[in-house]
């Protein structure tokens, strides 16, 4: 448990990181550094996006699988690391 905390703190301390959210497969945010409403919004939207992205990757090549998803927008970058049961969302403001 302590390692998990430590890892999260490490990511948090990276330059430009605005928030971290850990969501489980049902969409329940387990851990979050943002306020509740934003967390819920991110969790819901990212979940859907992940399903679509994973579906697309496997559709093109069934042997393939989604390992990472980056969504870069004007203001920041949303990075999503999926897994079978949980996924980790990090919002970072990339240094230009």
């Amino acid at each position, binding site marked *: *448990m302590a*390692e*998990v905390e430590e*890892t*999260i703190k*490490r*990511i948090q301390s*990276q*330059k*430009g*990181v605005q928030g971290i959210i*850990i969501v*489980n497969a*049902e*969409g*329940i*945010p*387990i*851990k979050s550094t943002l306020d509740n*409403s934003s967390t*819920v*919004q991110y969790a*819901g*939207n990212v979940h859907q996006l992940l399903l679509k992205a994973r579906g697309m990757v496997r559709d093109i090549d069934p042997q393939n699988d989604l*390992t*990472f998803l*980056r969504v*870069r927008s004007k203001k920041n*970058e949303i*990075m999503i*690391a*999926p*897994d*079978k*049961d*949980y*996924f*980790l969302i*990090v919002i*970072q403001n*990339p*240094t*230009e």
Partner: protein
Amino acid sequence: MEIVYVYTKKRSEFGRQCNFSDRPAELHVDILPDISLAANFTVRDPCNVTVQCAEEMSEHEVNTERFESESRGINHVEGGWPKDLNPEDMEVTIRYRKKVEKDEHYQNTIMQIAGLMEHCCKQNNATDIYQEFFEEEDDEVVEESEEQPSAKTINVFRDPNEVKRTATSLCWHPDGNHKLAVAYSSLEFQRAPNDMSFDSYIWDIENPNKPEMTLKPVSPLVCLEYNPKDSHILVGGSYNGQIAYWDTRKGSQPAEMSTIEHSHRDPVYKVIWLQSKTGTDIFSASTDGQVLWWDIRKMSEPFERLVLDPSKKGNLDNALGAVSLEFETTMPTKFMVGTEQGLVVSCNRKAKTPAEKIVCTYSGHHGPIYALQRNPFFPKNFLTVADWTARIWSEDIKESSIMWTKYHMAHLLDGCWSPVRPSVFFTVKMDGTLDVWDILFKQNDPTLSLKVCDEALCSIRVQDNGRFLGCGSQLGTTTLLEVSAGLCTLQKNEKAMMFERETKREKILEARHREMRLKERSRSEQSREDEGKEADGEESTEELVARAEREFFDIMEAEKKKEWNEERQREKVKDVLLLEAPSSIYNPESWVEKALL
């Protein structure tokens, strides 16, 4: 041949019940074939009969009703909690979360994906992975490729009312340019239909189906302007002469209206926000000959008034009706008024007496001046759009405009400069065409002429980035157009090249005019002395004509010589001045003056 069967009944039997009975069929009429008639006909053999075995189709037209859409957001609610858990309950959720965190599977998974994530975060911080290389090269390539100037329609906003009104004025929202306020009214005198709506709309560019906001004035608005400092406030001048202002946060009704007694007596054609400390000053112009200054906090009466009387006596009967106003924030003491009579009056706000307020007038147009605007880069030059031409003037030269377009086939109804390129301006015509002029590229014709709609285009406004422009038509259709990049990016040396030539030419012409006039005056003084000595010195018309001819040829000779000398000089200096012929010769006024002496 009629076959008739008559039913009869005795009158005494009327009203008696009907007794029906069966009887066998009776033959009443038997028409036998008459063979003699067959002689009138010939047997047709063979018979041609056309038969088609095809599907029967019918044509129908269907048009869907206008689709009104509204954007709404979704509110996300937490879900996924197990059935027995109440998500509102803080303790239970915390306990659940803690339980999950203790799970080993969770820990392993997180360790894995966190490692991956860290790598990417560091990557982001290390370098911009989406950096564009060779950006400068791309720019150069674009410049070299000659792009055809073009404009295309992006969106069309139609007046949602049944009775269509003219879109008389447009104004872009000062920040962000995502909204367009359009004033609708019918400028046809007393021809506005009874059920015409008075509303004006604010449109969101992205949604052409439904206006974002409606403004409900007491009388239709002829002009509408956003406050450049506060984007929630709009002021509108209405058809009955009143001024009203709206606060978009407060709703569709005007926040305040000017009192009728102190307002204009004719439609208010233009209203402009002034540069002031409070940011609440406006001034308005109308064809009743007055220019009024208002403070929107106190709309009961204007705080200043100017009567456009060219004789400077403040006489309202002599006044010129104002149709357009011009004010540049960089020159806050001066402003210009375009009149119905075709004169542009330049005025000074800070003059002590009303007589001094009117500084000078510029004449040259034949009809009301619908648009008047200074060039944003060269404030000394301004554009006027009236009758069938558009003219560019220089403030210093009061004789005539320095540049003018040819006379078009249709009236020009509005025009404006491009805010990003000093040499580009736009005009709209009564036949629905939009002309884009680039005076550095081509002076005789518009660089681009585009037919926007079939009815007259009454107003045009360019957005501050110079890329988008909106034009309003007589039937209330506002079209949003995008102009190609070539027409809205500043070219090199553009600022340096503008107007030097034309201004120089006009100065020379003006000097020559003055010389001619001085000569005339001295000659007329002499001839008057001569005439005084003669007893009945009336010249006959023939002699007059002969004299006029002689004088004409003398002048021609003199001018030719002058031109010749000048050309020699010109070649030395290597300046190209476009002088076709000195206009004084072809100026009928001066010719007639001389003939009547």
